């Protein structure tokens, strides 16, 4: 059977897939009955772990007196590097010690951990350590790192054409520097893990992780035991957004180490302030750009240096910064381009994956450049953007992949331009700004083109385990994790569709390394693409066996057999699915299968800087309108229209949820969410009291979100498209609209506005424009 023959059917002929089915845990969520790690009832004698954090930013640990910690009430054990039986590290690059040994490289680094009878006792004891650190001058900012030439990895670039010659020959040139802030994930459930030791040293770890396989590997490494001794289970996370990919490892491994040392079940749930201090964030960048363009705003050459603050270790920076480069052109054909990147070391927490994985930073830079070009040429920014889009004849990216379907985005933009009434509103806003002294309004429409696939080849695989029981109920397990995105629901929809049974016959079960091994992290938006395919493969295999059996039993041919509505239609008789399942068992037909999928057609040669890293692109566009107060910098997003391409959606309700949620999260990144490190390297925005993510009143009252309902041209599961990350970048429209509002103060000048565009930065930009 060709893959996805059913994808050629229209959505109306599907019974479960493409329906706006609710999240499988929704009823549990609203009752408070959905269990997260800290809700798992602990057995008697369970102990609690708290980390001790470095008070210094960089230096050698001279003394670490833990006697007061050991003497504190309730303390059972104190963990130091000496307690680690295996390898004291959580990273592939061997540069993220589980517990700092000898030196500290950022403030808040874990220097020991306490195990105590209660969490409260553990936290109190952790503050009693006497630490003496011989401090060295830390490298804190991007500028510090550039000056010191401090990097975690070599520079990397890709180039097409001759950008230097093209810049020199261009009619106009502009250059600038854009600072792009980082972002704290602020998953509502902080990092948490609960480890239970087994009878002969094996370890079961319940963890809030996007990557159970990786945690299994890390725990096995730390404890010096084979992977087969370690099982990691994850039922759900209270949010993750990339922050529980590698960053869940330390919490999980500390809980496991505590359980190993004490031989008791041990739990570590980080306090929110500790979570802020210990775990990595979105990379902040400084993009140094030069652009050459003509009178029409057509770009002739773009040269950009993406200076990424990676923090104190490598972690996921290779992929993150590469992806920033892949998205540095966004949806635009840049005839001559040089995209250069630096991966800078700083004495700050190691930056990590965050929804978009570098893509947003690369994309923000080019979108900011589009506005600069528009302001310089006096053309409407939307016209400048449109003039530069990939087209059928100009469709090769700076990394050599051909964009096969540029028409999808072009027509999507046209539709949004019309449905958002862009031109008429542009005129109204211009008229308003003429006469309004304090409140200025702005409008922008920006596109997103996001490449789908892990850029690390081997991660583009997935496994799923499907059992059909003799009563017709189905057990579904796969390597993907549920973090709220609805992956479990979508994959169950695929399986229910395959067997033609009601969705509630499919029992979704917790991700578990003992059921599906060697899984990839649930990341890169690839969860349903990969796991949906693997589960479909497993279901098809079982279904094939059931069909083979039925053809014999009922003397039919395979093409006479259909599974639908809980029945198996065989020619002109019908057998209930449960009955066929029972018959299969009685006739020794295996009703269990492990399915597997690997993404075809992708390849990337990093050294040669060419290939096809992405199976396809997900597209979208947003039109945002804002108002700013030029006396205070306060601002408000007043209306947003979004048109987003989720292919033929597996579940429109869940997809709209991803789009709205991603947009609002991106809006936070670009407006109120500011990470402030003080001069000593302490994260001053250390908790939600000082780090402000959007609340309900920040969301535009007029918020119109629609799906572009067109099948993916690539052969994905039911021709759907990945939707986890791309919508975050739709929020660039908000930043761009803020630029537009500021631009109205003095249309003769370029606006200087870094991200996030806090009220303070907006006021600073406004003041700079007011100066004559």
């Amino acid at each position, binding site marked *: 059977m060709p893959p996805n023959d059913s994808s050629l059917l229209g959505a109306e002929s599907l019974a479960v897939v493409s329906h706006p089915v609710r999240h499988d845990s929704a009823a549990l969520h609203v009752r408070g009955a959905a269990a997260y790690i*800290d809700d798992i009832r602990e057995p008697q004698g369970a102990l609690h772990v708290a980390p001790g954090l470095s008070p210094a930013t960089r230096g050698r640990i001279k003394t670490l007196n833990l006697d007061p910690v050991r003497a504190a009430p309730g303390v059972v054990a104190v963990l130091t590097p000496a307690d680690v039986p295996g390898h004291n590290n959580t990273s592939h690059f061997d540069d993220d010690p589980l517990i700092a040994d000898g030196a500290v490289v950022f403030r808040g680094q874990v220097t020991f951990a306490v195990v105590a009878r209660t969490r409260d006792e553990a936290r109190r004891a952790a503050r009693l350590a006497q630490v003496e650190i011989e401090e060295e001058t830390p490298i804190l900012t991007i500028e510090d790192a550039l000056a010191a030439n401090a990097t975690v990895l070599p520079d990397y670039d890709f180039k097409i054409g001759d950008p230097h010659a093209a810049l020199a020959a261009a009619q106009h040139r502009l250059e600038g520097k854009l600072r792009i802030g980082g972002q704290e994930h602020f998953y509502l459930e902080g990092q948490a893990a609960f480890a239970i030791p087994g009878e002969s040293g094996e370890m079961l770890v319940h963890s809030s992780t996007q990557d159970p396989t990786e945690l299994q590997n890390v725990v096995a490494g730390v404890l010096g035991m084979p992977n087969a001794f370690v099982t990691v289970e994850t039922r759900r996370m209270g949010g993750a957004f990339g922050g529980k990919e590698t960053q869940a490892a330390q919490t999980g491994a500390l809980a496991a180490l505590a359980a190993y040392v004490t031989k008791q079940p041990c739990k570590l749930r980080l306090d929110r302030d500790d979570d802020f201090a210990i775990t990595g964030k979105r990379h902040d960048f400084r993009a140094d750009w030069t652009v050459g363009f003509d009178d029409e705003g057509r770009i002739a050459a773009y040269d950009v240096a993406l200076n990424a603050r990676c923090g104190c270790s490598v972690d996921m920076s290779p992929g993150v910064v590469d992806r920033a480069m892949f998205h540095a052109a966004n949806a635009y054909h840049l005839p001559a381009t040089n995209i250069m990147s630096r991966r800078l070391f700083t004495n700050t927490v190691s930056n990590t994956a965050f929804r978009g994985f570098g893509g947003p930073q690369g994309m923000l830079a080019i979108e900011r450049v589009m506005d600069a070009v528009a302001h310089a040429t006096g053309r409407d920014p939307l016209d400048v953007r449109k003039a530069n889009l990939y087209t059928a004849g100009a469709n090769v990216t700076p990394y050599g992949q051909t964009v096969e379907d540029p028409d999808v985005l072009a027509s999507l933009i046209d539709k949004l331009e019309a449905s958002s009434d862009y031109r008429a509103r542009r005129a109204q806003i211009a008229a308003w700004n003429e006469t309004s002294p304090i*409140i200025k309004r702005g409008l922008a429409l920006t596109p997103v083109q996001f490449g789908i696939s892990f850029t690390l080849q081997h991660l583009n695989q997935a496994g799923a385990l499907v059992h059909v029981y003799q009563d017709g109920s189905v057990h579904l397990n796969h390597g993907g994790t549920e973090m709220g995105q609805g992956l479990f629901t979508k994959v169950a929809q695929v399986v229910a569709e395959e067997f033609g049974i009601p969705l509630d016959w499919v029992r979704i079960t917790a991700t578990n390394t003992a059921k599906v091994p060697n899984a990839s992290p649930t990341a890169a938006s690839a969860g349903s693409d990969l796991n949906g395919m693997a589960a479909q493969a497993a279901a098809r295999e079982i279904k094939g066996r059931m069909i083979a059996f039925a053809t014999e039993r009922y003397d039919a041919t395979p093409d006479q057999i259909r599974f639908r509505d809980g029945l198996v239609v065989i020619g002109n008789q019908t057998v209930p699915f449960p009955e066929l399942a029972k018959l299969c068992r009685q006739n020794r037909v295996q009703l269990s299968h492990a399915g597997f999928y690997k993404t075809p057609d992708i390849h990337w040669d990093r050294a040669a800087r060419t290939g096809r890293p992405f199976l396809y692109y997900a597209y979208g566009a947003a039109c945002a309108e804002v108002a700013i107060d030029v006396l205070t910098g306060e601002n408000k997003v007043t209306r947003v229209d979004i048109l987003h391409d989720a292919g033929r959606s597996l579940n429109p309700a869940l997809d709209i949820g991803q789009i709205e949620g991603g947009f609002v999260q991106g809006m936070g990144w670009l407006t109120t969410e500011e990470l*402030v490190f003080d001069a000593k390297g302490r994260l001053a925005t250390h908790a939600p009291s000082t780090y402000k993510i959007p609340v309900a009143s920040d969301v535009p009252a007029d918020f119109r979100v629609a799906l572009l309902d067109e099948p993916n041209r690539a052969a994905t599961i039911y021709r759907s498209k990945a939707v986890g990350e791309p919508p975050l970048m739709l929020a660039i429209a908000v930043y761009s609209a803020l630029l537009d509002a500021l631009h109205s103060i003095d249309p003769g000048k370029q606006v200087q506005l870094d991200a996030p565009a806090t009220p303070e930065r907006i006021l600073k930009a406004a003041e700079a424009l007011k100066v004559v």
Partner: protein
Amino acid sequence: MKRDHISFIFRGARVDLAGFSPHATLLEWLRLNARATGTKEGCGEGDCGACTVVLARASDGALDLRPVNACILLMGQVDGAEILTVEDLAEGNTLHPIQQAMVDHHGSQCGFCTPGIVMSLFALQQSAQGPVTRPQVERALAGNLCRCTGYRPIVDAAMESCSGPAQDRFAAATALRLAALAEMTDSADVFVGTSTQFFAAPASEDALAALYLEHPDALILSGATDVGLWITKALQTPPKIIWLGRLRGAFTAIEAGDKALSLGAGLTLADASAPLITLHPDFAEIMRRFGSAQVRASGTIGGSLANGSPIGDIAPCLIALGAEIELRRGSDLRRLPLEAYFIAYKQQDRRSGEYLRRIIIPRPAPDRAFRAFKVSKRFDEDISAVLGAFHIGLAGRHVIFARIAFGGMAATPSRAPQAEMAAIGIDLDAPATWAEALTAITLDYAPIDDARASAGYRTLISRNLFLKTLMEISGIPAEITRISGFEVPHAAE
């Protein structure tokens, strides 16, 4: 009369509890003692709302339901209340209408914020008198962070399910629940613990004054929206706590005179809002943006002044209006101007054994204008970078009086003496005459840089807020001077 335990209602049954530590929080009790894990901890500091539960109390014969942050509410503060948590809402397998609406609108993704959101909406619904509006829903949700959904489906669910009056089984059982609460009501002085470690809640000011004189080292507790964080974040363990939440009479009275408004220090910020708004409409936004519904339900006006915070929102407004406070120690009463109470950073004019009991605020005269502005990174539930309050007297179009106070600009909430002086004589119709005063204000303060704002920004804002005040009182309508109420004008169709 003394009582050696606290009493409350949980899961429909009365609980008398004596064995709790004075600084235990309600969230700890729920999750660790009652094993009720539906209520979540997202931050432990009152900022995320994942721990929101509802406390019901009897008030003037009616049930009064308030959302609170269980993470920073001390256990003793539930005395006399019914605790309602997310587990209470569904009846068997039937979801409460709010829960059902949340499911129908896809209002949960990861679900971790959901219990708190459901409880905030439940409090909204139970107190709603008519159709609910979007601004009401936004206000009710200002203290609930959701990182997944972008809020739109939650707001839709609320619009569908939170209109009042509620007609669910909770509303139906109001009389029974009031009776159960009444049964617990007494006028005893609560004292749980020993003379060296206790949670006390005197029922009268006389008892309070005596107890505090006896234990001047005790910590006075009002709403715990500050104190709670000292416990959960700084890990302090105050051994002696005197909670003022059982006091009534003058301590929670509102006396609305023609010339002045007197507010008892024990009024919650929620209860103080309406009377404050009678002073000037600008208090509406200041109060709406004070923390969140949860913070306002617990926090008190007395606590917000007594704590001496340099970044509090109420103090600068009241200083600009010339408010006075009344303190009591033993049987001694003393009155002083509010601004004199703030001596220096973390230092107030409060004697050992003395507490704040009343705030007296003169109403602005008809020939005086008042303006108050809060500027923060985020509109809702954020601490001010700067709060400016302006009280301006006019003779015709000329300024003849100015009393200006700021929060966020110095180590205490304080006035702007040079600007006040330079403002005299300003001609509203001649902006050239404004310049001197606008410059003066930048000399009045030397603010600091911190995570919320830089010193330069604060200084610029102080000047610009003064400018905005002058623009507004000279006649520019607030619809085009303020972003907060700004709405996109409807296009001509």
